[in-house]
């Protein structure tokens, strides 16, 4: 199952905040063109795993590799320049900036082709074109999520990290977000997504990881995990 050269790899990672260790021996990788979902109960360390990639955590042991180059302990603003785009779960847009200004900020590390990329984003997120002069803070939750994703994609991403992109959204928007994620992936961007809505996430994912108590519990293709009775009992029952 393992590809010779994953785009992003978390190898044997032990990490946490300050003295508190949250992740114990996490192994996750994302291959070219893949959508990979991380699911698991609350407090399992799903979002923490993504934040570790961003350089927001104390890493005790293990490695983070981007295209086989080690990026462990790179500070957040440098991680972006290496081609990792990240959409935080909350507070993921600059509320006082217009939609277009948000996208321009997303392109901070980009030196050329900003106008073209902006146009591509408006094609990918048609709703945003008409709202481009509006303050991002005035948009609805779903639209903000779109702005946040477009903002993250303004650079040439090697991989896109999404932290619970559908949390708190209505079912209609949730479906739209998952659709967009597939569209983005269709453009050739590998995606690592952390999700509460396990069923839908695994539905679009090539592969999935189930984290429990900060460590790998189950790994498999989206379909395998959806079919797994224990996974279903633990996380899928009652949801959606």
């Amino acid at each position, binding site marked *: 199952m393992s590809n010779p050269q994953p785009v992003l790899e978390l190898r044997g990672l032990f990490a946490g905040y300050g003295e508190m260790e949250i992740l114990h021996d996490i192994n996750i990788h994302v291959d070219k063109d893949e959508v990979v979902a991380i699911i698991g109960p609350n407090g399992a360390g799903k979002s923490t795993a993504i934040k570790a990639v961003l350089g927001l955590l104390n890493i005790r042991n293990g490695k983070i590799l981007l295209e086989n180059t080690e990026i462990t302990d790179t500070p957040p603003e440098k991680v972006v*320049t290496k081609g990792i785009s990240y959409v935080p779960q909350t507070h993921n847009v600059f509320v006082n900036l217009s939609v277009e*200004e948000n996208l321009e900020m997303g392109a*901070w590390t980009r030196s050329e082709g900003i106008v073209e990329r902006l146009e591509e984003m408006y094609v990918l997120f048609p709703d945003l074109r008409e709202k481009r002069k509006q303050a991002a803070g005035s948009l609805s939750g779903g639209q903000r999520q779109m702005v946040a994703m477009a903002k993250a994609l303004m650079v040439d991403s090697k991989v896109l990290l999404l932290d619970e992109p559908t949390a708190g959204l209505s079912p209609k928007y949730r479906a739209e977000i998952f659709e967009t994620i597939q569209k983005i992936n269709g453009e050739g961007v590998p995606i690592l997504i952390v999700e509460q809505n396990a069923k839908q996430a695994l539905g679009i994912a090539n592969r999935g990881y189930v984290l429990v108590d900060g460590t790998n519990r189950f790994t498999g293709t989206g379909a395998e995990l959806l079919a797994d009775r224990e996974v279903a009992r633990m996380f899928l029952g009652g949801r959606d």
Partner: protein
Amino acid sequence: MWTSFGFEFVNFYLIPGLVLGCIYALGAIGITLTFGILRFANFAHGEVMMTGAYLTWTISTLAGSLLGWALHPLIAAIPAVLAAIGILILIDRYFYKPFRDAPTIMVVMASFGMMLVVRSTVQFIWGPNQLTFVKGIDRPNEAVRQFTADFDMMLLVPNKHFWIMAGTIIIMLGFTYLLERTRIGKAMRAVSDSPDLASVTGIDVEAVVRATWIVGGFCAVAAGVFLAMDIQFLETTMGFRMLLPMFAAAILGGIGRPFGAVFGGLIIGLAEELSAYPWIGDAPLISPGYKTGVAFSIMIIMLIVRPSGLFKGRTF
């Protein structure tokens, strides 16, 4: 109407109030930017204003004695601005930057220390006595006086007040352009909005910090020079005296809201001057000795009623 009320009110209260408001507004821009972007109340800001005015005085005096040039203070202010920005960036590098990841109160304390360090340095170099910034009495602009007198609305505005108001408007236009149209200006707003998101977006926060000092320093020196032009002398406590009204202006306008700070500055300036108008009877409503108290009272009322300010700035 004009003779009984307007003449006195407009010429002796309203216009001076606007002029003072312009000075506060420029000063408050720096305060609110530092508060919004670096997230601390910078107590040394008034001292930057004062130092800028002293540097301007020195440059124009040197130009006068060495080269025989009579520089307008606004020309002499240009190198002073550059020097002040240099000083600010050095102060940031050695005294504020070490506390970037520490609790904010550490850097507030450092800035409080810098306030005295900068002031003592100026006192040591230039001495404690007042210096004359501009000699003589600045008479009201004759053309304006005659023109308005023809309409029976005589305005007595000295040239220095025109310079100050025009200067403030030009700086404000430039500042607006910077924040709304340039990449670094938008990034300043972005960092002010959320430093964490700015950092994971890849924005070079240190570049934004430098830009903040440049813009804040520029406006502070402009404010200091305008103040010196207005009162025509320099003293080492002039910055500290402005500090409280500037904080009041920044809080009134909403922390992290530069345009709010400008509005707040104008309100505070007007309130201070108009509070001395004999609204009731013949005596000033509030004794001029308590002018600073007006700014403080507005600030306290604001903190009680609406700590986020008029333009919904950040509350902590």
